[in-house]
C-alpha cells in the first residue's frame, strides 16, 4: 500500500535495465561490473535511501517477475521449454541482483546487514507467494517462486569466502522461509516445496556439510511439516493421484536419508513417528529401520540369537526430541512421577485412560502424542531403574514394577482403539540393538505372556503383524520380537484362536513364520 508516486515506474525501468545489463557481454565476471554500475543507478533513483524504499523495490520487482511468468505461462503456443527460458531470463537476473546486494551490503565483516537483507527479501517473496496463492487459488503457479528460491539458494551457497562465513545463517533463513511456506500453509506450492527441501544442494548443506550437525534440527522440522500435511490424506483409505505422487516423493526422500544419513533418522525417529499416521506402516518402518552406519546388525534370523549379550544392546539411543515436555498437563506429569516412585496416588491408574482421551486432533479419540510420550517416558524411567540395580532388561527384571503396572493397566483397561495406539507406541521403539529396543521388546512379550484376555494377545499380534506383511524394510527389533513370540513355546502362540481365524491369516502367519524361521 501507499507506494510513493512514480516508484512503480522507476522500479520497472530499473529492473529492465538490470536484466539487460546482466545478460550483456560487458557484465563481467559474475556480473560484478554490471552490478557496480547498476548500484549507481539505484542511488540516483533514490531507491537505497530508506529501508522502506528498498523493501518496496524488492516487492515490486518480485511482483513484476511473477506477472511476467503468468503472462508467459498463459501463452499457449509456446513449448514448456520456451516458456521457462523466457521466465528464467528475468528471474535469474533478479536472483543475481539479490545475491550481489546480500553479499555486498554493509562492509565485508558486517554479516548482520547481509543476513538481515536476506531475511527481508525471502520474507517479501514469501509474502507475495502467499498473497498470490490466496488470490489466484487453483490458478496459482509455483514456477516463479520455485525458481527464485532454488537459484538464490544455489548462488548463496557458492564456494566463496564471504558466503562461507554466513552460511549457517543463510541456511537458517531458508529453513525459516520454507517453514513459513510449509505445505499446510501453501498447498499449491507443495510439490515445489518438496523439490526445494529435497534438492541435492539443500540436503548436502544441511545434513552433510554443516559442522556439528547443526542443520539436522532445522531439516527435521521441515520433514515434520511434510508429515503433518500428508497425515490427514494418508489416514483415509482412498489416495488421490496427486496425494499418491507426493507420498511416493516423500518415500524417495526418506530412502535417500536412510541410505546417506541413517543417524539423522535414528535421532529424530520419535518426532517423526509422532506425526506419521499410524496406518502409514511402510513409511514408519522405513524410519524405524535406520541404524548407525558403524553398527553391524546381527542377522535377526540367527537361531538362538542371544540378544541380551549383544554389545550395543545396553546402549541408550540418542533421542533429540524433548518428549518429556509432551507429557501434559504438568499435574498429570507430577502424579505420574509420584506413581512411578511410590505407587501413589492410587487413583492414578484408574484415571489414566481419561487423561489419554483428551484429543486435540479432529477425528481422533486419543491424544496420540501423549500416549507416545507416556510410553517412552515410563520405559526410559524403567530402564534407568533396572540399570540402577546393576541389572539389564529381561522378562525377569522388568516386572514387578510401578512402570509395568502402568503398561499392564493400559493393556487391560483401554478400549481396542486405545490399546492399538498404546501397543503401536511400544512397537515404534523396536529398532536397532539398543536399550530401548531391548526393554520394549521384553515389555510387549511380557504383556503377551501375562495377558488376562485373548484380545490383548490378538492386538499385540496385529500390531506386529501389520508391520511385517508390508514391503521391506522391517526394523531389526520388530523381527527379533516376533520371532521370539512365535518360536518360544512359553507364549503358546500357535494355540490361539485368532491365529487360525481365517485361511489368509493362517497363510500369512505361516509365511511370516517361514521367512523368520
Amino acid at each position, binding site marked *: 500500500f501507499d507506494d510513493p508516486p512514480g516508484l512503480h515506474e522507476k522500479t520497472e525501468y530499473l529492473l529492465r535495465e538490470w536484466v539487460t545489463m546482466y545478460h550483456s557481454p560487458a557484465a563481467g565476471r559474475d556480473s560484478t561490473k554490471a552490478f557496480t554500475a547498476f548500484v549507481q543507478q539505484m542511488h540516483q533513483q533514490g531507491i537505497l535511501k530508506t529501508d522502506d524504499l528498498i523493501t518496496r523495490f524488492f516487492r515490486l520487482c518480485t511482483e513484476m517477475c511473477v506477472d511476467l511468468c503468468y503472462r508467459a505461462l498463459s501463452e499457449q503456443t509456446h513449448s514448456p521449454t520456451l516458456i521457462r527460458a523466457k521466465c528464467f531470463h528475468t528471474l535469474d537476473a533478479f536472483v543475481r541482483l539479490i545475491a550481489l546486494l546480500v553479499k555486498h551490503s554493509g562492509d565485508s565483516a558486517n554479516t548482520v546487514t547481509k543476513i538481515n537483507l536476506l531475511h527481508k527479501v525471502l520474507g517479501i517473496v514469501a509474502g507475495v507467494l502467499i498473497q498470490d496463492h490466496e488470490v489466484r487459488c487453483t490458478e496459482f503457479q509455483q514456477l516463479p517462486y520455485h525458481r527464485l528460491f532454488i537459484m538464490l539458494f544455489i548462488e548463496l551457497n557458492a564456494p566463496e569466502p564471504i558466503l562461507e562465513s554466513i552460511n549457517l545463517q543463510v541456511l537458517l533463513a531458508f529453513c525459516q522461509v520454507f517453514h513459513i511456506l510449509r505445505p499446510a500453509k501453501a498447498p499449491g506450492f507443495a510439490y515445489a516445496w518438496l523439490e526445494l527441501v529435497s534438492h541435492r544442494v539443500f540436503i548436502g548443506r544441511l545434513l552433510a556439510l554443516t559442522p556439528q550437525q547443526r542443520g539436522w534440527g532445522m531439516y527435521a522440522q521441515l520433514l515434520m511439516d511434510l508429515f503433518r500435511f500428508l497425515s490427514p490424506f494418508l489416514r483415509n483409505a482412498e489416495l488421490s493421484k496427486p496425494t499418491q505422487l*507426493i507420498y511416493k516423493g516423500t518415500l524417495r526422500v526418506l530412502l535417500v536419508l536412510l541410505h546417506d544419513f541413517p543417524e539423522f533418522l535414528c535421532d529424530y525417529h520419535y518426532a517423526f513417528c509422532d506425526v506419521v499416521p499410524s496406518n502409514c506402516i511402510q513409511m514408519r518402518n522405513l524410519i524405524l529401520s535406520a541404524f548407525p552406519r558403524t553398527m553391524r546388525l546381527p542377522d535377526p534370523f540367527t537361531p538362538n540369537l542371544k540378544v541380551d549379550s549383544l554389545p550395543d544392546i545396553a546402549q541408550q539411543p540418542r533421542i533429540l526430541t524433548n518428549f518429556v515436555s509432551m507429557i501434559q498437563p504438568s499435574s498429570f506429569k507430577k502424579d505420574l512421577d509420584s506413581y512411578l516412585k511410590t505407587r501413589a496416588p492410587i487413583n492414578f491408574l484408574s484415571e489414566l485412560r481419561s487423561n489419554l482421551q483428551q484429543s486435540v486432533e479432529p477425528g481422533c479419540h486419543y491424544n496420540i502424542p501423549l500416549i507416545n510420550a507416556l510410553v517412552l517416558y515410563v520405559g526410559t524411567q524403567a530402564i534407568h531403574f533396572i540399570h540402577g540395580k546393576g541389572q539389564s532388561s529381561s522378562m525377569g527384571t522388568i516386572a514387578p514394577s510401578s512402570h509395568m503396572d502402568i503398561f499392564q493397566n493400559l493393556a487391560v483397561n483401554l478400549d481396542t482403539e486405545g490399546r492399538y495406539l498404546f501397543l503401536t507406541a511400544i512397537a515404534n521403539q523396536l529398532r536397532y540393538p539398543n536399550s530401548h529396543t531391548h526393554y520394549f521388546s521384553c515389555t510387549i512379550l511380557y504383556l503377551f505372556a501375562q495377558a488376562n484376555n485373548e484380545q490383548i494377545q490378538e492386538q499385540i499380534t496385529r500390531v506386529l503383524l501389520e508391520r511385517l506383511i508390508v514391503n521391506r524394510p522391517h526394523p531389526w527389533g520388530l523381527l527379533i520380537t516376533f520371532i521370539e513370540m512365535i518360536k518360544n513355546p512359553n507364549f503358546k502362540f500357535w494355540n490361539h484362536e485368532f491365529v487360525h481365524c481365517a485361511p489368509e491369516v493362517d497363510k500369512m502367519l505361516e509365511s511370516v513364520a517361514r521367512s523368520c524361521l
Partner: protein
Amino acid sequence: PLVKDHVYQLTMLDAAYQHLPHPSDSERLRHYLPRNPCPTPSYYYQL
C-alpha cells in the same frame, strides 16, 4: 471425513498436480545443450 481446511489443501494440491515442477526448474539455464526430454526405446540405456 476431511475437515474444511484439509479439503481446501487437497483442492490446491490437485491444481498444482496439473503443472508439476520440472527438474530443469532447479538447474541453470543451458544455452548450448538444454534438456530435451523425449521417450526413447526401453532397450536403450536410460542411465
